Structure formats: structure tokens, C-alpha cells
């Protein structure tokens, strides 16, 4: 067992190297911080509770999409009986008017790339290109 020193040094080096990303993120303090989102100021109430929206807004949007496009049913009745037009641009983005600081920020953090915006338009983009 004359190589004991060599083996343990190698092991420590190896472990250090493969866990480097973890240490790096901890040191720079990026991963532990959830993104700070800009919430709408004008409207206080969403179509569903915050927790539901956070967990399953994507499922809701898919359901809305199928209801509107395939069933021609455009009205969403919220739990409190309030009625909404099922539309990403015309309902969601009317309140959440800052897509970059709300949708994008969290999607970037979570590493997801929804393709909604390939077709659906952020009204802000249009205003900027006009002005």
C-alpha cells in the first residue's frame, strides 16, 4: 500500500473536479436565488390562485388553446365565477404587460423554451418597433 497517498490525492482531485459546477454556483450565488419577477401593478387578481398558476399555467394554456381553436369556446369561468376571454395575448398579457420581466425571466431561469412566442405577439414589441 505504498501508493495510498497518491490514490487519495487523486480521488480528492477527481471529486473536486466533478463537483466544480456546484461549488462555482454556490460561490457566485446565482443558483440559490429565484428570479425576481415584475408583477402587474394595475390588477391584483389572476384567473387562478398564484400557486396553481405557478405550477400549472402551461397546462391551463394548452387547455385554453384547444378550447378556443378546436371547440370555438372562448370563455373561461374562474373559480369565483368571473369570466375571462381565453387568450394569451389579449388576456394574460393585458395584465402581465412586461413579458421580458415576467415570462422570460422565469423561463430562462428554469431553462425552458416555450414556442408560444414564435407566433403569438408580445404587444410591447410592436409598440417599440413603431416608436
Amino acid at each position, binding site marked *: 500500500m505504498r501508493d495510498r497517498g497518491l490514490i487519495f490525492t487523486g480521488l480528492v482531485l477527481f471529486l473536486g473536479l466533478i463537483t466544480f459546477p456546484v461549488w462555482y454556483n454556490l460561490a457566485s450565488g446565482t443558483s440559490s436565488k429565484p428570479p425576481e419577477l415584475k408583477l402587474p401593478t394595475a390588477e391584483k387578481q389572476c384567473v387562478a390562485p398564484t400557486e396553481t398558476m405557478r405550477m400549472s399555467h402551461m397546462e391551463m394554456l394548452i387547455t385554453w388553446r384547444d378550447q378556443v381553436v378546436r371547440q370555438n369556446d372562448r370563455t373561461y369561468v374562474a373559480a369565483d365565477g368571473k369570466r375571462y376571454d381565453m387568450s394569451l395575448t389579449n388576456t394574460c398579457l393585458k395584465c402581465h404587460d412586461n413579458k421580458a420581466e415576467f415570462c422570460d425571466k422565469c423561463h430562462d431561469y428554469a431553462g425552458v423554451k416555450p414556442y408560444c412566442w414564435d*407566433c403569438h405577439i408580445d*404587444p410591447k414589441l410592436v409598440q417599440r418597433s413603431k416608436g
Partner: protein
Amino acid sequence: MTIHRRTFLGVAGLSAVALAGKSTIGALAKAGEEAAPAAGTATRWAMVIDPQRCLRKEGCKDCIGACDKVHNVPLFQDKDHEVKWIWKEPFENAFTGEENPYTAEALKDKPVLVFCNHCDNPPCVRVCPTKATWKREDGIVMMDWHRCIGCRYCMAACPYGSRSFNWLDPRPRIPALDPEFPTRTKGVVEKCTFCEERLAKGEQPACVEACPEKALVFGNLDDPASEVRSLLREHFTIRRKPELGTQPEIYYIV
């Protein structure tokens, strides 16, 4: 009184046949009842076009402009990449088979408005492998751009050339983006949807609203009191390529 075995078997057999026949007829009658449509509630959207009125204002493109604007239709100068929802087609191209040796003289440079015919028997729907296009109950041949895989079978099937394919990214070619309506992406087929998003709000299609000569009339064919029905009652009308059996629902007054 004694019953012979032969008589008994005969009576029993006939009774069995009668019973089976009764239940079969009952089942058939029931199926017939279910298949009959509910009367009075149906909607069948259609359009009646008066080409003479359309020709009154020369070079008018108000309907085309209105449609392109509300639906974010891209403007490609290159014919190969063109995307069209509603456009003008020379008479002899729109109504192939209707031409005669003097057509050119009478209708030279006189275009006819054409767009999706929202056929009752749409061949595009039959060939779509993903059900991205289908016929709604109100007769609109609808498209789900989320589901289109860009195979272009529908374009091959449509005898009217009503469908366009996005060979390139359409977004940079849209003169003025309307955020209320989505754009399409590269690799997706698109066409006229009879403004179903406007119908849902109780509005008329954009082209109908924009026409200064009221040459386009939109309405419900299933309502005998509708304007389209009264126009069809009062005028001779033709449809594009009716011999193909697609049952187009755009009528042209002659």
C-alpha cells in the same frame, strides 16, 4: 288435441323468425331517428359575391388590405413565397371551364375575388394526416396552426389553390403586426378562416366590412330569412368547379 312433432317445430321456428325480425326493425328505426339532425338550430356560414359590384371601383383592394392587416398576412414580392388569404384572380383562371372564345374580350383584366370556399365536402380535410384542418359544425373549414406539420397534402388536395405555405419566416414580412392575432411560423400552411375570431365576437368578416361597394355578403345558409338566402333566391349564381363535388360555399352572382 295432439300436436305432432313436425307442427310444433314449424310453429316454434316461425315464432323465432318473427321475434328476431321485430327487434331488428326496432333497432333500425331507432338508428334512423338518431341520425336525423336537429332542425332550427343549425348554422352554415356562406358568402355571396357580386363580381359586377366588385368591379365598380377599379383597382380596389380594400378587402384584401383589411384581411391581411387583421390576420398578419406576410407580404412576399416573390411569387414562389407568396401567402394569400383573399386575392383577385382573372375570370378565366377562377372559373376554368366557363371560358368561351369571347371571354377575354369581355372580361380582359377583369378580376374575380377568390379565397377559401369552405367546402361542404372539403378535400383538404380528408387528406390532412394530423387533423390540423377540419370542418366545423357551422361549416367553416378551420385550421389549427399548432398542429400543422407542413406536409402540404392539403395544398395538393385543394382544387382552388386557396392555401399558402410559409417557405420563409413570415414575421419580418408583415408590414404592421397586429398583436391581437398570432402570426404563423415557417413550415406552416395558412388560409382564410372566414374570420372565425371575429364571428365569435358577433362581427362580420373583415373583407365584408371593408368592401365599399357591399359586393360581399356573408350569412347563414340555414336561415331562410338571411340575406345570403334571399340573394340566392333572386339571382342566378355560380360556384367554382362545382363538378368536382366539393360543394363550395362561395356563390358568385352572374
